[in-house]
């Protein structure tokens, strides 16, 4: 096991090799590795800016190539620092390119409980994993345009429905300010930061504790939940279903549109 991090974490003990990369140099390091696996010349000085040495990286590359089945796990240290999605893209590309030599896969270490389930379901029902708009009556995808932080900071929305998340505690202040400005609806087992700035809060049973159902493991294996308690509150599913049913009774909001659109906007 090779561990790459900017500092010596507790996981170092479990690792055979620890490579300490300079903060903010993940993308550079992975890009160098992409070049090295293809035997492209990279100089010692060029490697130096990542905080590592030629020797370390050559050893690393030969170990990767010698592996029979390699797995790269990556976490938020990669995807949430400067470069963001491009850092993850770099690692995924490296993993893909390693398949020219041996079997390799890359897997994001997702936090936040069942975020994988959301991803899987959005993909199957809409074709896209996140950052979706249905405003034209069909799914469109554009992270940056339709992703929540951007939408809130720009003030592009006039009503927010928040479930299984607490953006009021985690998002940048301008986004939180906008949530407070517009009608916000929160479903959560607790009264959260977001609940406090919302117009409507509904307490729901926590998933897996007192609400049954399914959750996806980060490798996209669905697992059944076995709640141990009986909640005095309804489940998220029940509340959202009832909201859907209530909305279905109201007149359709959509004007004349064709059933099938041959050319999308």
């Amino acid at each position, binding site marked *: 096991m090779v561990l790459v991090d900017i500092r010596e974490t507790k996981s170092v003990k479990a690792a055979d090799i620890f490579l300490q990369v300079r903060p903010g140099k993940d*993308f*550079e390091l992975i*890009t*160098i590795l*992409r*070049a090295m696996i*293809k035997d*492209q*010349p*990279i100089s010692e000085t*060029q*490697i130096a*800016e*990542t905080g590592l040495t030629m020797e370390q990286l050559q050893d690393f590359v030969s170990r990767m190539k010698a592996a029979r089945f390699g797995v790269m796990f990556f976490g938020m240290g990669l995807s949430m620092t*400067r*470069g963001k999605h*491009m850092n993850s893209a770099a690692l995924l590309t490296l993993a893909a390119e390693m398949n020219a030599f041996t079997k390799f896969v890359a897997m994001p270490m997702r936090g936040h409980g069942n975020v994988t389930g959301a991803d899987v379901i959005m993909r199957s029902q809409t074709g896209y994993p996140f950052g979706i708009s*249905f*405003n*034209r009556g069909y799914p469109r*995808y*554009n*992270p*940056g*345009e339709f992703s929540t932080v951007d939408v809130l900071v720009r*003030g*592009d*929305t*006039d009503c927010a429905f928040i479930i299984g998340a607490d953006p009021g505690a985690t998002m940048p202040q301008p986004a939180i300010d906008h949530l407070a400005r517009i009608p916000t609806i929160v479903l959560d087992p607790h009264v959260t930061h977001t609940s406090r700035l919302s117009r409507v809060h509904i307490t729901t049973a926590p998933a897996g504790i007192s609400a049954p159902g399914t959750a996806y493991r980060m490798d996209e294996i669905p697992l059944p939940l076995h709640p141990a308690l009986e909640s005095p509150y309804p489940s998220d599913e029940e509340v959202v279903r009832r909201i859907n049913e209530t909305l279905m009774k109201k007149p359709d*909001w*959509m*004007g004349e549109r064709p059933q099938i659109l041959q050319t999308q*906007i």
Partner: protein
Amino acid sequence: MNKIKLTLKKPPTVVLEAEVITPDHLVERSNEEIRASVVYHGKRQRRLDDFFDIEGERSDCVEIHGDLHRVRHVGRGMTRGDLTVRGDVGMHLGAHMSGGTIEVFGNAGDWVGGEMKQGRIHVHGDVGQQLGAAYRGSPIGMQGGTILIDGNAGIEVGMRMRRGTIVVGGTARDFAGLQMKGGTIILCGGAEIRTGAWMQRGTIVSLKEISLMPTFAYSGAYNPTFLNVYARHLGTLGIDLPCAEAEGSYKRFCGDRAVPGKGEILIWEPAVS
């Protein structure tokens, strides 16, 4: 000259998607038809004249006044005509366009000239991210035409572009020329980090010193002749590209070796006087 003038009278409270504001759409329509054109205020279908005062008809010369920072898709897919915006304008300005010109006296949002094929866009202010870039998942960004930005640009300028020219007068942020496959990006005010990352082909010219990816290699200093041609062309657009040997030379870097690519980054080094 016959002209259509749109003046924003009621600012949208959420995003207004107005791909009907293109010379192609307006040139064929009467004033009444233009007024009735469908725009999307968030999810609601609205008439164009719910938001704009509209003068004129049947012209491919269009002028828009007002703060349009929430108005998206202006000039989308246009093939002809002139579109002038006096004020800020929102995302996707001139995306997929294949002809005509757009001039903005103000700032513009993200994806200006996204996947454009031909034509010219000139923004006098700043622009957002993904200027002339590919949309998510698309293999190819800008395929032709010219984009001039007087101000600064956000990240991923010219991402996956294959042909055409982008000039940024100010500074570009990270990943300028990301995965570039061809074409030319001129960065008058330099760029932040990771310029030219993963580029396959194409040329990035920077008039200021920039930090490079470790996967680029220095391959000498020179004054490429093609830049003379370029400089003359850009001169007509009001851009001064130094190329005379007396003034200095360009340091040439090749990469990105991670791909491995044959792109080049030229960094201007003025002669010591």
